[in-house]
């Protein structure tokens, strides 16, 4: 079992309910492949620093999870095939932070609000 975190940028054109559904399905995919979702952090819609697939806004989500290396391949593939995912990045971490920080809600930075 290894610790991972993944940042997923979803097209903000997606409506709120289907966005929820999308994130839920990602978590479901992890859970259904012997993974364990630790935490999901939603940063909300942010301005992208550059245009990605004609989108200027993206909904950022950070999912922390545990799982086997094979799980990473599975979710990486699913992100790649998903048109609504603008960008994704899966990184292995040494450990998850003990108290999941809220720093992103505090520091709005580059136009956190759409």
């Amino acid at each position: 079992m290894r610790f991972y975190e993944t940042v997923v940028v979803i097209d903000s054109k997606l409506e709120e309910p289907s966005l929820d559904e999308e994130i839920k399905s990602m978590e479901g995919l992890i859970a259904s492949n012997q993974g364990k979702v630790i935490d999901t952090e939603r940063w909300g819609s942010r301005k992208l620093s550059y245009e990605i697939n004609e989108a200027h806004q993206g909904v950022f989500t950070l999912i922390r999870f545990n799982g086997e290396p094979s799980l990473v391949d599975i979710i990486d593939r699913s992100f790649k095939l998903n048109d609504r995912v603008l960008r994704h990045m899966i990184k292995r971490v040494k450990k998850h932070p003990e108290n999941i920080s809220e720093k992103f809600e505090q520091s709005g930075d580059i136009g956190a609000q759409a």
Partner: protein
Amino acid sequence: MNESKMAARPRKQKRIAGRIKNIDYKDPKQLRRFVTERGKIVPSRISGASARCQRRLAKAIKRARHIGLLPFIEETYK
């Protein structure tokens, strides 16, 4: 002549940054300090980051660029 020119240049502020804690690609606000207005990575000789921190910064900035938190290039200043 060249030398005198260099001597005339006022001394820049001394290194201050040194070790930087909690370098994280998910925190563009912090990383912004280490890129220029154009989005280039500031060399450690300017920012004063230690060699180890500079390596970590560079990696974090590149990751942040990939997920769209930082620009590769900033062409227009808004």
